[in-house]
């Protein structure tokens, strides 16, 4: 038995980082140059004290209230993030208590970056199929802006903070819900998106706090997130289309069978090149990055939620979710919507502290 996405909701901070603010800090030229390629004109940024777990809590509370779901019926909670509240313990356990979930609810963290959503769905789908869980709440959240140096324009201009909550349950209609997954990784590209002094491999010390600049003048330390932008962009546009074609072939499908293709919202030009390479028709494309930024691990879940809110999901339609990012890592999830498709969660998306 496969599992079906019965509700999804997202939460972003109300605070915005505008083009004007970035231009004042870095100059208009470089900021415009990045925006021309990324298509990102505004980012939502969590204020001090608000964490990815807080945004996830906001998304979960909104979803549970809007759907009238009793928290006591949730028996699986996965918190997927690379910006958790703690290294120890798992943030999912803290959220289990905070959300008022049962003590026999399985709760654990999943450490994955921008590719997190298909991984989260695949794990939960497997636990539901094996009978371990019946009703899963999946929380995909990141506050990546918190780990970017304030003078690193290349990353600040791209990223925002956000979270999504997904309700996954056994499908009641045949041949609906999650129909396939393709997960993969290429660790040779691990250095391309990396926060070097963020764990046991490189303990933090005076040297890791030292600021350094790249050729373009972006400043960071080894305690901040760094990205080799050209390498990541090149991997995405040159490898991901082949990976997607391979998965479709394995499933006996072509792009013509898909009704909607949602890609990780990293960069508008990157997505356009991928869509074009795959010959995905305009009406099967959807974008949601211009006003929120690249939301890292929450990105694909949030773009799915927004597509639902904007009426882009149709009963019986087939949606392909494609995520890729640090690791390097990628994941695809194929989902067919039930004929009795529920309306979207229409609760507010701006974070309000509780």
């Amino acid at each position, binding site marked *: 038995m496969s599992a079906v996405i019965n509700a999804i909701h997202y939460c972003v901070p109300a605070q915005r980082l505008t083009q004007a603010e970035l231009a004042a800090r870095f100059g208009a030229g470089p900021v415009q140059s990045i925006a021309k390629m990324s298509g990102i004109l505004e980012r939502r940024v969590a204020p001090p004290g608000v964490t990815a777990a807080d945004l996830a809590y906001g998304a979960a509370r909104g979803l549970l209230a809007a759907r009238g779901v009793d928290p006591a019926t949730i028996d699986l909670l996965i918190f997927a993030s690379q910006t958790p509240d703690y290294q120890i313990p798992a943030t999912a356990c803290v959220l289990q208590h905070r959300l008022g979930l049962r003590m026999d609810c399985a709760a654990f963290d999943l450490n994955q970056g921008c590719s997190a959503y298909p991984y989260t769905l695949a794990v939960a789908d497997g636990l539901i199929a094996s009978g371990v869980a019946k009703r899963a709440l999946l929380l995909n959240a990141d506050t990546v802006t918190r780990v970017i140096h304030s003078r690193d324009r290349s990353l600040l201009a791209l990223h925002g903070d956000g979270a999504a909550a997904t309700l996954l349950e056994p499908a009641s209609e045949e041949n609906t819900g999650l129909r396939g997954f393709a997960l993969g990784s290429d660790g040779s590209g691990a250095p391309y998106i990396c926060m070097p002094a963020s764990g046991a491999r490189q303990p933090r010390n005076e040297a890791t706090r030292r600021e350094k600049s790249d*050729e373009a003048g972006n400043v960071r330390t080894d305690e901040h997130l760094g990205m*080799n932008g*050209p390498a990541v962009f*090149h991997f995405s546009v040159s490898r991901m289309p082949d990976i997607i074609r391979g998965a479709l072939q394995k499933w006996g499908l072509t792009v013509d069978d898909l009704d909607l293709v949602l890609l990780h919202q990293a960069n508008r030009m990157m997505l356009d090149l991928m869509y074009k390479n795959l010959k995905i028709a305009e009406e099967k494309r959807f974008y949601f990055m211009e006003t929120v930024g690249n939301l890292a691990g929450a990105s694909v879940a949030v773009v799915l939620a927004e597509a639902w809110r904007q009426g882009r999901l149709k009963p019986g339609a087939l949606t392909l979710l494609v995520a890729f990012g640090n690791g390097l890592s990628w994941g695809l999830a194929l989902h067919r919507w039930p004929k009795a498709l529920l309306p979207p969660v229409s609760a507010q998306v701006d974070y309000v502290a509780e």
Partner: protein
Amino acid sequence: MTPEEKHARLQEIFREALDLPELRLTENFSMADCPVWDSVATVQIVLAAEAAFKVRIPTEKVATLHRAGDLLALLQ
């Protein structure tokens, strides 16, 4: 395409990506010499070179691309 023709075509690509119409491209021309050569420009240059020369440049080479000579060497 001769090495001279490749150089000329790559010079056009650099001129367009960096918006420097008078640029005389040398092997030693690097990001360090040119404030407008940022990561966005690197992406534009690589994609344009792949299309113009009908090659796929390995991602690990893109990751370390800092001077024009690196790219010219890959295209020979």
